[in-house]
């Protein structure tokens, strides 16, 4: 009989503590303050428990579940993203559903993200993928008063369903070719040209289909059509969350799969193409947006493109660049959505006019975030880009670097539109009251971007270790 050892429990400690919180929330439906406190406790516990395998890697449940440094790193960013979103969600007045239900959906998504990066079995990967996606559809549609919420949610669900079905089909074809669903067996097969021929049509079709599913989650072009609609429909607190956490999971999966499929030219060139398309399309489409959430949605497509550029290299240094950029991206994006949520009712750029005169604190932090998104020193965005560019230069991918550079310049233009509205234009509107908690969170994000920009020794080192350099 198969018995579960303690070490196996400790490998999934974080996931268990989160699920326990979700169960408590759904069972007792506590009031808002209690729910927030409980969730924070759960997230803190999960943060500590996921760090447990940092010293020795755990390979549990007959090799289907793996907890190592890379996984711990990715899980912890996702958990921090969850905590930040929770603070904004707390003050969100647009949400009419019961708070505990919304938060439990959020927790399920976090669990899904955590399982994706740890899963070493295709079925488990797929299940976690669904666990990450299905609550997201519900979250986007969770503003019942707005018709846009329903539309965005439905669009997201239809696109998402198709994408996961495609990916599942890709998995089944891969199973047909390799004869196993476990990553270690697949890796073994791919490293022996006698077992698997990389140029066989079956392998190529299955890899293409798997890539489609992942690209959907990463909101990469040409599978990005749901992104602007879904992120516009969702309330800023949720939009920030679904623009970050699925990306952390998706890039985690991409890094892991890269270590198996790096030999396949099709695999890498598909990522390469998606990277160039996403960067260029995301930035060009963002220029003319007047809705801040739509603008940020296109900007997330562009940022996915930057990270895909590092992923398309298939090197360990590229993985490190992704990990670092993901960290910076998490703070930048959540910070931007946080401030959008606090400072505007309908997320229009016009609503930010004269924000610097009304609420200098918010406009200053937003300026820092926007500069970081553009990639200017002394903020984290530059350091992230620096690693991506230098990873690309190591592989002599000059075209990729060129496209990235041009896109950074284009991105300045639309980020500067927000800056212009906040600082150069006069606007009516009242002073915004910010709760001390929100103030602390935003100040923390701003400080974090500065730390990631000038004092990144420690974080850079951890990311290097996580990437296995």
């Amino acid at each position, binding site marked *: 009989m198969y018995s579960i050892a303690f070490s196996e429990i400790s490998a999934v400690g974080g996931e268990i503590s989160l699920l326990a919180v979700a169960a408590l929330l759904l069972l007792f439906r506590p009031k808002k303050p209690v729910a927030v406190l409980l969730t924070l406790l759960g997230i803190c516990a999960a943060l500590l428990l996921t760090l447990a395998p940092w010293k020795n890697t755990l390979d549990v449940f007959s090799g289907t579940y793996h907890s190592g440094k890379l996984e711990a790193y990715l899980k912890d960013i996702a958990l921090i993203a969850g905590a930040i979103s929770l603070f904004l969600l707390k003050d969100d007045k647009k949400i009419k559903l019961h708070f505990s239900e919304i938060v439990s959906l959020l927790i399920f998504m976090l669990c899904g993200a955590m399982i994706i990066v740890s899963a070493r079995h295709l079925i488990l990967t797929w299940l976690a993928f669904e666990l990450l996606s299905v609550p997201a559809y519900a979250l986007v549609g969770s503003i019942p008063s707005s018709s846009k919420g329903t539309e965005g949610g439905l669009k997201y669900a239809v696109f998402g369903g198709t994408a996961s079905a495609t990916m599942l089909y890709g998995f089944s074809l891969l199973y047909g070719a390799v004869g196993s669903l476990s990553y270690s067996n697949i890796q073994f097969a791919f490293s022996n040209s006698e077992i698997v021929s990389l140029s066989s049509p079956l392998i190529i079709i299955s890899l293409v289909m798997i890539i489609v599913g992942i690209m959907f989650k990463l909101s990469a072009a040409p599978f990005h059509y749901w992104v602007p609609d879904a992120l516009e429909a969702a309330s800023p607190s949720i939009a920030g969350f679904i623009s970050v956490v699925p990306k952390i999971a998706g890039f985690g999966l991409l890094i892991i799969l890269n270590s198996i499929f790096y030999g396949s030219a099709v695999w890498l060139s598909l990522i390469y193409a998606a990277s160039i398309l996403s960067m260029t399309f995301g930035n060009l489409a963002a220029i003319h947006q007047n809705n801040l959430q739509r603008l940020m949605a296109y900007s997330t497509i562009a940022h996915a493109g930057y990270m895909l550029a590092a992923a398309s290299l298939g090197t360990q240094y590229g993985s490190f660049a992704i990990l670092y950029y993901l960290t910076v991206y998490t703070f930048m994006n959540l910070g931007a959505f946080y401030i959008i949520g606090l400072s505007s009712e309908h997320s229009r750029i016009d609503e930010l006019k004269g924000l610097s005169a009304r609420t200098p604190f918010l406009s200053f932090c937003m300026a820092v975030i926007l500069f970081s998104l553009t990639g200017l020193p*002394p903020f984290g965005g*530059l350091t992230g880009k*620096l690693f991506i560019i230098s990873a690309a*230069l190591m592989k002599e991918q000059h075209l990729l670097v060129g496209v990235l550079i041009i896109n950074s310049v284009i991105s*300045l233009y639309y980020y500067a539109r927000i800056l212009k509205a906040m600082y150069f234009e006069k606007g009516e509107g009242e002073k915004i009251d910010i709760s001390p908690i929100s103030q602390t969170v935003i100040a923390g994000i701003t400080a974090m971007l500065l730390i990631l920009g000038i004092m990144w*020794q420690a974080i850079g080192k951890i990311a290097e270790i996580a990437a296995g350099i």
Partner: protein
Amino acid sequence: MTLSLLLLIPLLGSVIALFVPEKAVKPLALVITIVTLIAAIPLLIYFDTSISGFQFLEERYWIPTFGINYIVAVDGLSLPLVILTVLLSLICIIASWNIEKHVRGYFSLFLLLQSAMTGVFIALDMFLFYVFWELMLLPMYFLIGIWGAPPRVDADGRTRGGPYAAIKFFIYTLIGSLLMLVAILWLWNQNGTFDFRQWTDPDRNIQFQVILWTLFFIAFAIKIPMFPFHTWLPDAHVEAPTAVSVVLAGVLLKMGTYGIIRFNYFLFPDATVMMAITVGVFGVINIIYGTLCAMAQTDMKRLVAYSSISHMGYVMLGMSAFMSVGRGSAVYEGLLGGTLQMWNHGTITAMMFLLVGVIYDRAHHRDITRLGGLAITMPIYTGFVGLAFFASLGLPGLSGFIGEALVLLGTWKAAGIYRIFVGIAAVGIVITAGYHLWLIHRAFLGKENPECAKLPDINLREIITLVPLGLIVIWIGVYPAPALRYISATMQSIVDNILQAGL
């Protein structure tokens, strides 16, 4: 510690300025800049003019695992520019005394800008350099956008105004800096350190050198600004408030030529020899193009802006003439003149922008055609204008002449095609004299324009900003030897370094 103080004092000041009462901000900024100027004096006293290398070197660990360190130092090339930065910042604070809008923000950003500008000139670690290089853009963007002219559409339907000029300036510079970032990361990947002194490699492939040289060069050329990357400059100058124009022309433009001499010349000597004539050609184009455009302007500030383009052309021409064509022997005068011209242009153009600001504060326009006979209404002002404009057109006895003369002397010595450049540049000098004199003729001499008959003369605060610059202009014009002593050793070693390693 001296150099770090020059960075830290303004930086600290910019933070403190955010928290003091609104009334105390201006005195605070004044005290901060005066203290910084005093802190810079030891540099002039203890600088050993016989040494060509870096002095006042400070090295500290920053992010050692990635080869990033805090390394600052000055040599004969950067010392004048550091002093210029510190001096002009003080003058700009005095010139900004009439700012009333968001006082805290303005002075805080200005002090941040001063810190970043100083950093660009003293950083030897390329990561540090890049941080300062871009950091400078942020305050500049806001200073032009918020305190510049309000947005409007002019008679030809073109967008004008501070926000437009600010974003144009920002985007232009960002394109260049990202190209430079690629080059920096490329060299970092090869060497594992950001200390540019360790990036020299005599065996570097010439094609590779030329590519990297070009990446750096475009970044710096946009800053100079070199034709055809110059179109941001007139907009930025015209829309910016006076003090911002002063630092823009006085300090920021120098970063372009400084960068080329510091990095292009030092890192890629072979490519530099190959591209020298190209730099010279662009220098000559700048001279002629700038003067012709200046000739056509009726807006006084735009005229001064275009004159900057032409004067930076002399710097480029001078620094391209570092060896004689054919024989390959060293020529020092060109580079020496170019560096001196950087300093001179910094002081003279600063004066000119301050003077344009004076008339704009009184008449609320800068249209030359609507001025006239100012010599009668504003005699003291006209005196200062005379000094600045004659220095700018290169009158012997004033500093502009020394710089241009050295440049032309060096270029002539370089022989070959450079002699043709001298001829064209000489034509440029004639046109330069032409538009300067024509401006004085139209705005200051002749019949009084009733529209500006009642303008009050220049006041004490404005005189205080102009006098130190005026004294420097006369001093260097009459007795340039002390100034040249500071820079000559470094210039010689730069030229020798190129010729040693060069083709």
